[in-house]
């Protein structure tokens, strides 16, 4: 019974397309995140939502738009995909988003832009 799930696991698409990645958590957590792991292996936070409200928005192109229909879901929509968007995207959740709260990660979505 997966705690944090993401779909799809792999996504290959052409430059200029629009795509979405879905994330769901069944842990009852209030806070969800999106991270990007680039070719240098850094995990960089992109967005964080707490109870459907945006609380962290790092310097991310506005082609990336997160959407949280409810606190169990945080989807990531990407417009006009570029080569540099190729990366592994991880969704995560934590109980309240507090400093010491453990983050639980999904398995990742490997996005390849051709």
């Amino acid at each position: 019974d997966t705690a944090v799930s993401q779909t799809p696991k792999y996504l290959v698409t052409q430059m200029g397309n629009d795509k979405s990645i879905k994330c769901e958590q069944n842990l009852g957590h209030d806070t969800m995140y999106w991270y990007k792991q680039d070719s240098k292996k850094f995990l960089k936070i992109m967005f964080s939502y707490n109870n459907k409200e945006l609380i962290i928005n790092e310097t991310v192109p506005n082609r990336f738009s997160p959407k949280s229909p409810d606190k169990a879901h945080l989807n990531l929509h990407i417009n006009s995909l570029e080569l540099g968007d190729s990366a592994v995207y991880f969704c995560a959740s934590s109980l309240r988003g507090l400093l010491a709260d453990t983050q639980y990660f999904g398995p990742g979505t490997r996005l390849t832009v051709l």
Partner: protein
Amino acid sequence: DQQVKQNSPSLSVQEGRISILNCDYTNSMFDYFLWYKKYPAEGPTFLISISSIKDKNEDGRFTVFLNKSAKHLSLHIVPSQPGDSAVYFCAAASDAGKSTFGDGTTLTVKP
């Protein structure tokens, strides 16, 4: 600006010996530090953490040491087991829910 650095991209250790993974940070505002472990094709999983008011936290075979004056933390695994082979990320947090990750160290434990 890389605020959290793991200077060793890889580490190889014999089974039964100690593994020591290091992490340095630059931001003195970080209050909480975490280690995550990641297997291939999976997301990171939480391993152990330490608050800035402590200098050591132990959980079974895993111990994290924090040296605030040197802005350095380390993860000790004793004894190392082949199942410990994974990528280890250290992370530091200063704001609620926001963690800054290092770029990982790949640990290989040889039988």
